[in-house]
């Protein structure tokens, strides 16, 4: 690795964003605009229905009366729910992006141009996975930060009208530096968590003769169903290990801020009645650290690397025909 490699990867990642500006640049902007629009519309409609401003100004006053931990929990909840919408849409966008990434240029023959550049196939594949796993979360984080700031500014406006201390009651509980760090680090760890799925999509797009997205989805579904039925025919028991369920669980569980720390909710509720919902459930470094320390994470990474190596293998052999 030298400086040359990084600058080449940088231009290759920019290339990917040039190719799909809607997926990577406009979608986060559109989501942010949509959330803002809904918020503003709700406030306008609310103001017409709710003449006394019970739900807004009085609500803000009530919120200001709460104790600190509850304020933090509510603020974190608002920040988190905004961010998770971005993350879920980003997952879908990235799925489609990856499935097409090594396929589209084979189909339109522009692979002949890309292969006429002095760029190795390993570098090409690396640039695609970096775009999905690093560039996309950073760009979507931009949208998240933007909308969080806008919502806090709106809240501050109402706070001023309600005459509360907006710094102490709004900006401090929202704790943007922590929220932003957790969001950014969390989405990168989430990418690592999803690496086997991302790499599988890239792998399919490197060899599929057509419709790579369909192949990428159908193959695990068919294997999972086959496992399911086979287990009935063989021993009338559900299999302990079903590929489809493993994949769905991986997508569903995720890492903060794409997902809630359910494990904490479950274990603490079982301990007794001591469970109190807190911001830690939504925003904590601890659960990110736990994800990084789990063996499932690193098995997934290993599988992902295998698929990436397979993608390079097929990419090296592919031309326009």
């Amino acid at each position, binding site marked *: 690795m030298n400086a040359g490699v990084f600058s080449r990867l940088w231009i290759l990642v920019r290339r990917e964003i040039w190719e799909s500006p809607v997926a990577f640049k406009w979608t986060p902007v559109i989501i942010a605009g949509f959330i803002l629009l809904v918020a503003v519309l709700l406030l306008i409609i609310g103001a017409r229905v709710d003449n006394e401003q019970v739900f807004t100004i009085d609500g803000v006053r009530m919120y200001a009366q709460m104790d600190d931990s509850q304020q933090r929990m509510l603020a974190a909840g608002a920040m988190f729910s905004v961010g998770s919408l971005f993350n879920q849409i980003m997952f879908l966008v990235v799925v489609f992006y990856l499935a097409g990434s090594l396929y589209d240029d084979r189909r339109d023959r522009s*692979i002949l141009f890309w292969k006429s550049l002095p760029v190795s196939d390993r570098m090409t594949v690396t640039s695609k996975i970096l775009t999905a796993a690093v560039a996309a979360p950073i760009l979507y984080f931009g949208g998240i930060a933007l909308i969080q700031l806008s919502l806090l500014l709106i809240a501050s406006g109402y706070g001023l009208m309600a005459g509360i201390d907006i710094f102490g009651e709004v900006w401090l509980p929202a704790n943007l530096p922590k929220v932003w760090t957790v969001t950014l680090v969390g989405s990168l760890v989430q990418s690592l968590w999803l690496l086997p799925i991302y790499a599988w999509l890239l792998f399919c797009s490197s060899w599929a003769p057509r419709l790579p997205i369909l192949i990428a989805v159908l193959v695990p579904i068919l294997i999972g169903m086959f496992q399911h039925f086979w287990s009935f025919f063989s021993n009338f028991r559900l299999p302990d290990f079903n590929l489809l369920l493993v994949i769905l669980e991986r997508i569903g569980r995720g890492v903060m801020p794409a997902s809630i720390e359910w494990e904490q909710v479950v274990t603490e509720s079982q301990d007794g009645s001591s469970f109190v919902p807190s911001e830690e459930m939504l925003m904590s470094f601890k659960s990110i650290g736990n994800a990084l320390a789990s063996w499932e994470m690193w098995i997934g990474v290993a599988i992902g690397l295998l698929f990436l190596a397979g993608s390079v293998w097929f990419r090296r052999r592919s031309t326009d025909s």
Partner: protein
Amino acid sequence: MEPSTIHARGLSRHYGSTVALDNVDLTVPAGRIVGLIGPNGAGKTTALKAILGLGKFSGQLEVLGLDPSKHRDQLMEDVCFIADVAVLPRWARVWQIIELTERLHPRFSREQCMKYLARTNIQQRSKVRALSKGMVVQLHLALVMSIDARLLVLDEPTLGLDILFRKQFYTSLLNEYFDEQRTILITTHQVEEVEHILTDLIFIKGGRLVVNSSMDDIYERYTEVMVGPDTVEQARALDPIHERVLFGRHIMLFDNADERALGEIGEIHKPSVADLFVALMGERTDLPEAGGNTA
């Protein structure tokens, strides 16, 4: 001595039971313009793909001293390639393609490229999708001519272009790009347009090289004679390899014939590459064809 630009020994490629390349030996020194001519399915594209590191092959192949199947990325620093018109990414804008090439190609000169583009109507903001076929080729040529490469491979570069663009394409290549350090390898069906710039000619058919020599040797070896009706039988006795009829005159092609003897029975011409192609690559017929066959 400088190693040859392309050096192949026993180059072969099979697709199932079809033989696309059959034990081809080929050496191309630097400073040549080689025409690789053959009918459809003769193995031209397979050969080019092997040379560019885009396809598998068996046998020995070195391009600029590198094995293209292992070192494509390194090789592409010195090799440029224009396939027929449609390979520039259609979503990209002109400035994006220039930026990419500049960042990724160590021997690209943006200044040169801008100079070439200034002569065209291509706008930096335009998407490739919005350019006409001719403009896409102009853009690709501007990119390639701004790269200081040693081998330029052109695969049907002017397919589907009108004659003005085609003429301009080869004129720019010859006047502003080609020199003794570079080698150009061209495949095309429009033989007439390249024959005047070629230094070497390769005919390929069924995966084998039928002709592989310099243009000088070709003109030395093959002679075309136009004979009137009265000397036809006399000329046929000298065993022409091909015969066609044009406006009542018989045009015969001879391989290694005695020019003096031919001069006595008709007018001697240099054969055109197209006529040679028809004579050597078509089915050999002893009967003259009914219609005139000019290319």
